């Protein structure tokens, strides 16, 4: 919206007794709302990199990193929903209002200078207002929060002074409906930005001061219909001051509540983590204690086996393996994300050292029935590794190929077996091979004594997407 400069002396519309009011009213209502919505709609509730504790290195790796930082500085949408983030958003709002006011004042400057009875005084007053707006914006942006009490007090005082001096520097009849008389608009901008000042007395006193100064500004110029216009302008000051004050206060309260909620969440997470660590270490400590006791070779050997199991459990904890169990659940009948499914199953085998490499199949989804078959098969395979293989490393690898087929490989470096002489148990024979083949998968088992076992499950010739669509529709029927 461009500033509707009204330098003519025609009677102003009652709705636009002076132009700044019309312009700033829309500005004052829309921008805070937009700012609040954008801030609250921030994708991640909090970005840890914004807090001092998680501050990133200050040096940029490359230009892209530097550009990213620069962009982030100005992108309101990425401001954190913390108290600090909200204050930063306020600083953008304040700078916008103040610099916007200067922009509105600028086009009418030459007319004001030309028509003013005291040109030098007019220019001095105008310069003081512009300078205060620019300096105030810069300081606010640097501080990343609104101005403090002293600066706000000075702001109010300047606005009052400019209003009181206005009759001396303005020509008769120019006090309404023109940006030549910028003083009321400037005062409104001060009211808008000072809404965030902490002290209620200062805020109320400043507002009353501006109303009193505005009354002095009107002086003998008010008469006839203009009385009601002047009264409307005073009400505008009061209403906007109250609304913007409520906006500042409510937004700060939201941020405070969000910070409190995050602190509570962090505390609960810490307690849960502590509980998990206690549960996890409970058995390990007992085994270590027993290992320090004198014992025979047989007992010690058993204890070492137990220690090995506990060691694997602790390694899994260190890798964050337990969190795999919390993989997102899906709605009934919906295609299932295979990577999440595999992570969930691997999480149930915390005692095995499982490397789950799933990035290449991150987008793979299967119909629920087929996903169930894969889940049971993978669980059965890992159970076999746990019970029979004696493996030190297990790799679970998911790969979705360019032709949309996929494969899931489970490889362990354990004892292996000879497929020619050893009959597979019911788990491998029925749950893995039988059920998977019934679901249309291909299963390949490669094993040799002492060389571990590799089981590869493939989607078969049918492309995944087709299979999902087909199976989903069948399930729905």
């Amino acid at each position, binding site marked *: 919206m461009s500033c509707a400069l009204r330098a003519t002396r025609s009677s102003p519309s009652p709705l636009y007794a002076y132009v700044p009011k019309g312009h700033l009213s829309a500005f004052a209502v829309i921008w805070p709302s937009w700012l609040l919505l954008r801030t609250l709609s921030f994708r991640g509730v909090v970005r840890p990199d914004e807090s001092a504790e998680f501050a990133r290195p200050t040096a940029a790796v490359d230009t892209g990193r530097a550009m990213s930082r620069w962009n982030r500085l100005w992108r309101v949408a990425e401001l954190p929903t913390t108290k600090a983030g909200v204050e930063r958003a306020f600083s953008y709002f304040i700078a916008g209002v103040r610099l916007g006011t200067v922009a509105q004042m600028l086009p009418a400057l030459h007319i004001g200078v030309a028509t003013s009875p005291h040109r030098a005084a007019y220019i001095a007053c105008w310069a003081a207002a512009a300078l205060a707006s620019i300096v105030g914006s810069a300081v606010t942006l640097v501080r990343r929060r609104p101005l403090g009490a002293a600066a706000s007090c000075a702001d109010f005082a300047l606005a009052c002074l400019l209003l009181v001096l206005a009759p001396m520097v303005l020509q008769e009849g120019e006090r309404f409906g023109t940006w030549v008389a910028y003083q009321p608009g400037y005062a409104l901008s001060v009211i808008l930005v000072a809404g965030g000042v902490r002290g209620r007395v200062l805020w109320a006193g400043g507002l009353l001061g501006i109303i009193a100064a505005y009354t002095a500004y009107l002086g003998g110029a008010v008469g006839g219909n203009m009385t009601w216009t002047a009264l409307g302008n005073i009400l505008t000051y009061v209403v906007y001051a109250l609304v913007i004050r409520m906006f500042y206060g409510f937004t700060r309260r939201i941020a405070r509540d969000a910070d409190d909620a995050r602190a509570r969440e962090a505390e609960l997470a810490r307690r849960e983590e502590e509980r998990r660590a206690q549960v996890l270490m409970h058995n390990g400590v007992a085994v270590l204690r027993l290992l320090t006791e004198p014992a025979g070779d047989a007992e010690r050997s058993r204890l070492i086996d137990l220690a090995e199991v506990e060691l694997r459990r602790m390694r899994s904890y260190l890798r964050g393996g337990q969190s795999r169990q919390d993989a997102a659940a899906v709605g009934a009948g919906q295609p299932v994300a295979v990577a999440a499914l595999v992570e969930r199953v691997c999480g149930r085998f915390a005692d095995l050292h499982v490397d789950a490499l799933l990035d290449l199949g991150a987008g793979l989804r299967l119909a629920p029935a087929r996903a169930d078959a894969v889940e049971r098969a993978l669980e059965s395979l890992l159970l076999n590794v746990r019970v029979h293989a004696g493996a030190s490393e297990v790799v679970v690898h998911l790969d979705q190929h360019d032709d949309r087929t996929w494969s899931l490989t489970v490889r362990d*470096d354990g004892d292996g077996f000879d497929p020619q002489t050893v009959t597979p148990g019911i788990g491998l024979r029925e749950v893995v091979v039988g059920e998977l083949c019934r679901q249309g998968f291909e299963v390949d088992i490669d094993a040799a004594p002492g060389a571990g076992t590799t089981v590869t499950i493939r989607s078969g010739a049918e492309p995944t997407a087709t299979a999902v669509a087909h199976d989903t529709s069948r399930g729905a029927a």
Partner: protein
Amino acid sequence: MRPAVAVVDDSPLIRESVGLLMPGLEVAAAVSTVEELVRRRPAADLVILDLHLANLEQQPDVRQGIAAIRAATGCGYRVCVYSQEERRFVLAACLAAGAGGIVSKALPTRRAEELFVEVAAGGTVMPQAVVGILEVLVRRDCITLLSERQRQLLRGRARGLSYAQVAKQLFVSESTLRGYWLELTRSLSDSLRDLTPAEIEHALGLAPGDLLELWPAEPTAPKDWWRTG
């Protein structure tokens, strides 16, 4: 001939146990901080470096992580990280920072010793999780220097297949394959060092900025510090 190693670990237990439990290594120095290593500059074929060197009790402000790797490699040492760290991007970041290998403290000492010898001889030891990351980077054309045979080898190793299994698939001898792997891992490590966090984030589908805190910044960065916690 036994390779001479310098052990940098804040735990006296680890510093002592390397010499006692790994007879294939000659411990030239065992120090608790990388600052002390840099000051003493012992002659060593390999620096066995713990990733988490700071501890509140004795040395809260010492260099660790990426900064420690950089300090050691900056002195011309070949570095092998010996840590309990399991997070895959942290491990990949260590390779990107110049480490020649990463060995888990959870491995049996005999296996760890073999791997240290391999790194001291110029090899590159990568954890399985990092091999997985590299396979993704290659498949998504973030790393493009590989021949078809190298891609097949990486594909097999990412699935955990043994040298024997991959050799059988590729119709080459196991020893030849080991040579290929040595060459391939060096090449991949070099390529990893050239990538920016943004490129890796994009290839792996991570959110922008996810790797910034982990990944090594410019060596000249004023805040050449990296927290592993």
